[in-house]
């Protein structure tokens, strides 16, 4: 009798275990790195937005796989004719997620919206300094712009801006402006653990965080109270989402083939053919709004000399790099604005590959024998830079021909970004994606200054008054034709002064198993996983 029971129990348990996956559907995404934080407000990293996009919601969102602005936590909005006053009507009955230390007692309302923006914008706000106060996105996009933020009633908020801002509504679709819970913040402050609002996220989104295990996984489960579940394209269609962290692209593809994950982010170009050939897999392609470049440390010799920068630009064989390193269909570019957006200056061409001219320029600048520098190489694949190390090795070889000896420097991704932002690189490789569909966005963050002080992501510390003037003018008027004109002029100034060299514009690819239904490549910001389902 006793022996029998001992035998039956494990078999029964095993049976339960085996049948479990059929009941709860789990979407597994092989992703390329750790989110650098769990707070949307403290990041500009796409890897992090991929996670926060699924936990939080914003007032307005970008349609899945497109560029249109659609309602999020705000159902409707109105703008004053001078583009200075914006009023948002909030969605009613939006539930907050709960976790071990927090159970919400009320729905999302205007207080949460005000808390979200006040925390980032108001230096005296009790939560402003929690977590370090480095709100990169807010600084780039909204700092100094909001004159007044009022609660009109529980479900209406009104932004009054200092300057007319045509792109204001669109900019609120940035992943960093995810609405956070004021009630959660209050409770955590009272409990003496205010930093929990960033480390134990509570959102209104389709999935809630179960756990984040560094270098292993981010696990989320379906949030039953999610407001979007009623809308087919917005609804969460799987029970669990797991981000498996696999920094090596070929490992992600191997896992995808083995069925260990359903979606593999950023597949490697060499694997495209294998993916296409496999009947179980699908290569999903989409447009991308990106900027990929190297920067020069302008405050230091020899890069303070424009002739040196020009020489280095002429010495890089961009065509070869595009062919060897970038994704199929990528092109060299001389314009900051990518082809997917309006406002691009199509007349601008990158500097031609001309080592002789480069040598002459170097000699003129007083470096006939060249010099030694470091050259930073991105350690992971991004849509705008599929293989940073190889690109760096090619630039290194090109520069060696004009006597410039470059030492390739690289770090783990989080460390790399931190050091690049600390201005440690003489020649830094970086880039970015547009987080919302407005040409000014990524350029403002990466190439402009505030009152003569470079923005955090303006790593070469390039403050150019003419450029600044055009950028400011473009952001303050609402007529698109006029704005485009200013942006085109700004791009011309940028190319002429060479604070960096644009390496190319790419495309975005994702690999997925065939059983994944309705997965779309997201051109802007993080990739949402609502609307995605799994066939049996």
């Amino acid at each position, binding site marked *: 009798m006793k022996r029998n029971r001992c035998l039956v129990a494990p078999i029964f348990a095993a049976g339960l275990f085996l049948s479990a996956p059929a009941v709860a559907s789990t979407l597994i995404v092989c992703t390329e790195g750790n989110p650098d934080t769990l707070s949307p407000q403290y990041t500009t990293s796409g890897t992090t937005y991929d996670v926060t996009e699924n936990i939080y919601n914003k007032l307005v969102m970008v349609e899945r796989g497109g560029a249109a602005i659609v309602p999020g936590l705000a159902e409707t909005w109105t703008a004053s004719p001078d583009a200075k006053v914006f009023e948002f009507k909030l969605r009613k009955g939006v539930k907050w997620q709960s976790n071990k230390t927090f159970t919400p007692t009320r729905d999302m309302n205007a207080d949460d919206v005000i808390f979200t923006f006040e925390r980032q914008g108001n230096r005296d706000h009790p939560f402003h300094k929690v977590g370090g106060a480095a709100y990169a996105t807010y600084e780039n996009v909204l700092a100094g712009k909001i004159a007044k933020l009022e609660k009109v009633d529980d479900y209406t908020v009104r932004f009054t801006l200092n300057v007319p801002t045509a792109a204001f509504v669109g900019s609120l679709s940035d992943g960093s402006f995810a609405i956070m819970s004021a009630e959660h913040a209050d409770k955590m402050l009272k409990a003496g653990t205010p930093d929990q609002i960033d480390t134990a996220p509570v959102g209104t989104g389709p999935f809630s965080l179960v756990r984040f295990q560094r270098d292993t996984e981010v696990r989320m489960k379906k949030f039953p109270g999610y407001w979007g579940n009623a809308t087919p394209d917005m609804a969460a269609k799987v029970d669990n989402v797991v981000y498996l962290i696999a920094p090596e*692209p*070929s490992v992600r593809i191997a896992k995808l083939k083995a069925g260990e994950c359903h979606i593999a982010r950023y597949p490697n170009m*060499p694997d495209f053919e*294998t993916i296409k050939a496999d009947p179980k897999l699908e290569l999903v392609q989409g447009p991308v709004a990106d900027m990929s470049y190297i920067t020069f440390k302008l405050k230091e010799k020899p890069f303070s000399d424009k002739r040196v920068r020009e020489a280095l630009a002429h010495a890089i064989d961009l065509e070869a790099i595009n062919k*060897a390193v970038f994704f199929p269909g990528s092109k060299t570019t001389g314009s900051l604005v990518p082809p997917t957006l309006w406002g691009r200056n199509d007349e601008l061409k990158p500097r031609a590959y001309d080592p002789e001219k480069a040598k002459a320029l170097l000699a003129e600048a007083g470096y006939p024998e060249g010099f030694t520098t470091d050259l930073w190489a991105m*350690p992971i694949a991004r849509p705008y830079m599929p293989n940073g190390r*190889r690109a760096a*090795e*090619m630039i290194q*070889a090109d520069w060696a021909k004009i006597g410039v000896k470059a030492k390739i420097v690289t770090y783990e991704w989080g460390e790399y970004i931190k050091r690049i932002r600390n201005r440690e690189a003489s020649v830094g490789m970086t880039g970015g994606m547009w987080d919302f569909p407005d040409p000014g966005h990524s350029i403002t963050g990466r190439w402009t200054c505030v009152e003569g002080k470079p923005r955090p992501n303006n790593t070469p510390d390039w403050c150019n008054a003419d450029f600044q003037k055009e950028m400011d003018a473009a952001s303050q008027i609402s007529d698109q034709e006029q704005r485009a004109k200013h942006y085109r002029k700004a791009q011309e100034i940028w190319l002429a002064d060479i604070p960096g060299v644009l390496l190319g514009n790419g495309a975005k690819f994702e690999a997925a198993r065939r059983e994944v239904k309705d997965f779309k490549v997201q051109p802007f910001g993080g990739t949402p996983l609502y609307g995605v389902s799994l066939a049996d």
Partner: protein
Amino acid sequence: MSDAILAVPEKIPSRAVELWKSFARNRAALVSSVVLVVLVLLAICASVVAPHDPIEQFRKDILLPPAWLEGGKVAFPLGTDDIGRDILSRLLHGAQLSILIGIIVVTISLVVGCALGLVAAFFGGLIDTAIMRVMDILLVFPGLVLAVVVVAVVGPGLFNAMLAVAIVMMPSFTRLTRASALRELSREYVSASRSAGAGRFHLMVRTVFPNCVAPLIIQATLGFANAILDAAALGFLGLGAQPPTPEWGTMLSGSLAYLQSAWWMVTFPGACILVTVICFNLVGDGLRDALDPKLRR
């Protein structure tokens, strides 16, 4: 009866010949040593033998398969990598580097390790305890982890990587030397030498050390293999040789993305590491069999 006792061999073979004979009896070790000799020769003549400059990028010929496959070119016998560098040339120059790494690492750890081991054995007491406990601490950490820590402290780079691997390997030499020296110290010939008035240094270097050499030779040969493997591992982690230096481990890590689509980029450096390490291990085994009288019988 008496005949048998009187049957003395005509000529007693010298120690070296005897060693060689017993080593040659081990086929695997013999073949391995031949492979290693060829490898060393190739490495020494790399700049003559290699068809191209290892860091030159032939940008029209990226990702060419080996010559015998469709699409390959005779000019690039083992194909090219993703930015058009000749793989054969890189492997040959990489061999130079790997063997250099082996020699330098083994020399550093052997010299320092033996010196520390002898000092520990001769002086005993507090000095012995201090040295051996430090070695024990080093032994506690897994080799690669310790190497990564050392590189993290002194910064990435080929020389630092070698230093790191040398530090990792040192304790084995120290322990081996100390153990053999202690054993020899209790022998009569040492006492005889001491009573004849030999100084401590003379005893250490001239009397005792030569008799500890056999196990050290074996350890050094095996260490050579470990050094190459560890340096490759550090290179793989981006902590060893820096680009564009051709190094086997770095070549491997740079080509991992091509595992499924351009197998030659991964396979050849991997095979080189494999063959070299196996050969050194087999030679080490052969030497142990030849040098250790207990095993020989």
